[in-house]
């Protein structure tokens, strides 16, 4: 799959081939339609929908957002209408989005994930499933499924049993050894990994002498976490051979290329959309300019090339183009 400019910028996530390597991230990008006035969604690789759970969720009290140096904290708390309402009212609209739609599943038990995954993946509008096993804002004492290799494997295995569609496990940076978690997810059947979710953090109002977020703690995103996320991608790319959707503070084409060089096949754009909703376009244009300048015809040729221990060299072999 080649862009009209003549460069191949496609990215592969299991059996799903994205024409562009840019992904609008879950919880940051609505269904994509919210950003349609500002970007050409047909030039965005995919949109990952906001996570859906078994039952409706009101989410956390406000403030849910606090702006911090070079980033922001959020604690939305998985507000969503629950899978029943979602399937009945929301999913059909996603077919109108001119890019791939990836469903996101969250839960509080292994069974929750399997149940919601099976029902969501059964819908033709959904191209792949992301398992949000790393949301820091509904966790107990910060522990999420993605903090434990066994729990990670159990969730992925249960979801894997429900669908043939590509499964992406979204990993947490709030762990000691992300490579171990990545291996557990892949051995359990994940086709790809999203690396990484937000970094736990908080902020305190010194005049009210209270935490600024309604939920007290939140997830830090934006440029502040970029080096953390980049290292996580680098380490995961050494540990496993599945495609990685690199994410965490990517704001520019240069940032995106760093993640590709570290071993990501595609790049997620989240908080940068809040600074400029045109970000996916400017990042794609910048990647194309870099390819022209560096004489790179196919983006996959640079994936992992800054990573001597890159485990991924064979993943793009085959006839998909």
């Amino acid at each position, binding site marked *: 799959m080649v862009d009209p400019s003549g460069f191949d910028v496609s990215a592969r996530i299991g059996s799903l081939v994205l024409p562009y390597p840019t992904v609008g991230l879950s919880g940051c990008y609505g269904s994509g339609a919210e*950003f349609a006035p500002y970007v050409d969604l047909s030039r965005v690789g995919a949109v990952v929908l906001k996570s859906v759970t078994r039952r*409706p969720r009101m989410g956390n009290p406000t*403030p*849910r957002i606090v*702006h911090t140096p070079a980033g922001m904290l959020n604690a939305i708390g998985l507000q969503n209408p629950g899978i029943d309402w979602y399937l009945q009212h929301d999913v059909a609209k996603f077919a109108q989005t001119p890019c791939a739609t990836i469903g996101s599943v969250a839960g509080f038990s292994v069974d929750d994930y399997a149940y919601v995954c099976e029902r969501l993946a059964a819908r033709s509008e959904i191209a792949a499933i992301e398992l949000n096993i790393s949301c820091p804002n509904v966790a107990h004492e910060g522990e999420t499924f993605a903090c434990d290799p066994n729990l990670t494997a159990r969730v992925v295995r249960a979801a894997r049993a429900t669908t043939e569609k590509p499964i992406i496990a979204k990993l947490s940076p709030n762990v000691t050894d992300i490579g171990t978690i990545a291996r557990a997810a892949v051995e359990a059947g994940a086709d790809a990994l999203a690396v990484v979710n937000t970094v736990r953090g908080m902020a305190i109002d010194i005049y009210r002498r209270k935490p600024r977020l309604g939920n007290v703690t939140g997830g830090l995103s*934006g440029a502040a976490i970029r080096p953390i996320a980049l290292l996580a991608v680098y380490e995961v790319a050494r540990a496993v051979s599945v495609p990685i959707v690199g994410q965490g503070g990517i704001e520019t084409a240069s940032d995106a290329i760093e993640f590709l060089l570290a071993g990501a096949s595609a790049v997620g754009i989240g908080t940068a959309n809040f600074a*400029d909703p*045109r970000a996916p376009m400017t990042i794609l244009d910048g990647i194309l300019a870099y390819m022209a300048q560096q004489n790179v015809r196919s983006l996959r040729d640079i994936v992992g090339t800054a990573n001597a221990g890159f485990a991924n060299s064979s993943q793009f072999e085959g006839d998909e183009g």
Partner: protein
Amino acid sequence: MTLASPPSSVVSTRILDRTEVARDVILLGIEAPELVEKVRPGHFAMALLPGGQAAGVALGIYEARGERCSLLFFIAGDRTRRLGALRVGEMLDIVAPLGNGFDCGGKARDIAIVAGGVGIASVLLPAQAFLARGARVRLFYGARTAERLVEAERFATEGCDLSIATDDGSRGHHGVVTELLAREPAPEAILACGPTPMLRAVSAYAQERNVPAQLSLEEAFGCGVGGCWGCVVPIIGSSAQAPSFPPSDADGSDVVHARVCVEGPVFWAHELRW
């Protein structure tokens, strides 16, 4: 409010004028002819910071006439400081117009507008709309100090009756602005924009006197366009403002979290459940 949001876009504007109307309070005039045609009272803009690296700043659109709109804001942190450093002739991209806006229709002839602090930035356009159709507009304007009471004379010049309160008593009533409102004869309709405690007091007053009140809410925004669900407020789920909202929780409650940026920022006081 049930007004549909207009189509918004990223508008590249040029700074026409920059006035420091008080210490750390900036009025930026921007050249945006296509925006003037689309803006209604109560709309807001997301101002994209030059150089990015931080979320845009949600600002009420203060004026819109001819080829010029203006943004009035207080420097309160790093992001507003960066906006305040813009100079005449420089470019500023904004996403606008956003939000539902105030409903300035209806038959009410005696309008009270209650503004607190930087909330003043969102109420000039509705004041002008009501004055233009011959209504009486009383502005109840509260600020921390006289120095922070910006643009009051502008509202008087437009034809508003002014009542002023300051927290420190340096000008007008020594106390909160809602005390002034309660002292006067009740209006037929209320519009308000300001800090949440003020809006809560306005809401309580309006419901006690059975006066319809539209409140433009202040909340920390993420995207400003409905994609992140960061800026929510609890409202009744069967309200006109959130007619298609799903059940919000498993407990059967009729309260939902609506987005301030899309379903608002203007809400009827009687539909809020905060």
